[in-house]
């Protein structure tokens, strides 16, 4: 075949594990699927005929499914030639709140990753977070952990130990958070940063816990509703600042939060 002697990245067919981030209808019965792969980063590939009822891949290429895929490189778009399910994340699908959290994470990853850029760290982080969402972990905790982890992996982790303005260690009191230097501001420096928002001590503690530990260690913590709202708002503002755009899924996420999930 001669294929095996070619550099790996130029082979016509490549096999990869992938997570389905999103898809949209294309043409008569095709779908344009956005995948996250550990090695090739984000991949946009056409899945032919999957909207037909007898398609063998339709169910496999559902959003938030982890798959093994054989993909054919194309001039403009790649084509998925085979796919099998590795994890369908079924428990996540059966709960509206968890599904929405999963879609929110998928949207974040879609915005943060590039095509053709190695993303094994983000891939592993997303898989782990989806697993946690499917098991009993509090979804608010998963969301918080996921967002901080994503910021860390992409180099945007906020400073949580020292004041980003004066560099002094933070005191155990109510502080402030500013997205533009990207971290906590102490009460003394607050006047220089009028846009900084209040950050309660419990929110800071929780952020530190999540930023430092793995998800399993923090998974037993249940986040009270007010704290979830505070952290949700803070992380959203910070994400908006980093991405320079609004996230689409937050509106529905907020609607469910208001309705008591």
């Amino acid at each position, binding site marked *: 075949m001669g294929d095996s002697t070619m550099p790996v990245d130029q082979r016509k067919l490549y096999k990869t594990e992938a997570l389905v981030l*999103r898809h*949209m209808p294309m*043409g008569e019965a095709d779908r344009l699927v956005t995948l996250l792969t550990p090695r090739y980063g984000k991949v946009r590939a056409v899945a032919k005929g999957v909207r037909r*009822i*007898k398609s*063998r891949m*339709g*169910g*496999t290429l*559902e*959003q*938030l499914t982890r798959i093994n895929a054989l993909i054919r490189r194309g001039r403009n778009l790649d084509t998925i030639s085979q796919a099998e*399910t590795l994890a*369908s994340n*079924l428990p996540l*699908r*059966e709960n*509206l709140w968890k*599904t*929405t959290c999963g*879609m*929110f994470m*998928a*949207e974040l990853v*879609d915005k943060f990753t590039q095509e053709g850029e190695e993303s094994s760290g983000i891939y592993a982080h997303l898989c782990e977070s989806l697993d946690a969402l499917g098991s009993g972990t509090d979804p608010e905790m998963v969301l918080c952990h996921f967002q901080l982890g994503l910021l860390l992996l992409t180099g945007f982790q906020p400073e949580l130990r020292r004041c980003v303005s004066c560099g002094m260690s933070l005191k155990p009191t109510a502080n402030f958070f500013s997205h533009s230097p990207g971290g906590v501001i102490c009460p003394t420096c607050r006047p220089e940063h009028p846009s900084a928002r209040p950050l309660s001590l419990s929110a800071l503690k929780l952020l530190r816990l999540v930023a430092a530990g793995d998800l399993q260690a923090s998974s037993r913590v249940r986040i009270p509703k007010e704290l979830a709202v505070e952290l949700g708002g803070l992380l959203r503002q910070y994400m908006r600042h980093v991405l320079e755009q609004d996230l*689409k*899924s937050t*509106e*529905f*996420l907020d*609607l469910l939060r208001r*309705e008591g999930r």
Partner: protein
Amino acid sequence: MDYLPAAAPIVRLIEELNKLPGVGPKTAQRLAYHLIRTPAEEVSSLAQAIAAIKEQVVFCSQCQNITDINPCVICTDARRDAAQICVVEQPLDVLALEKTHIFKGMYHVLHGAISPINGVGPGDLKVQELVDRIAKGGVDEIILATNPSLEGEATATYVQRQIGGTMVRITRLARGLPAGIDLEYADEVTLSRALAGRQEFD
């Protein structure tokens, strides 16, 4: 160049055609020049057909389906059972269900599914219209026939929540194996649901 390479009306037509889904600049040019060669009556017939979509087609005040008579023919059909409402995502789903000749109830078209990642929320769908319709009374059963996809399921769950407080029976279309496939190629979600929904063999 300070002049246009084609006459202004043609350029305008090409631009308009180019906005259509699946029509690229080359196809738009071909279509435009094809229309120039087409007899005038055929072209005006096409133009009238396009204009009529916006002038004559409306949403049915009951089922929200696209219709030229309000309420639509299905909603005014006295032989149909008004106590059963089948909730679907798209007008094309109504056509598919009608082809079965089995369902004799009414429909409700949501015009989409909740898709947080694309910014489509319940406010963009005809959910409130359904809630209002049920509140008027006379409905015994709501059949949720949204797509068995992640977004369709999310929509079904959301609709169920909105009408959950009422005494209406809520059902969901069965999910399982399509006719004429090989079992070995069925994905695990479909198979596990087909197993869960298995029926007495008699």
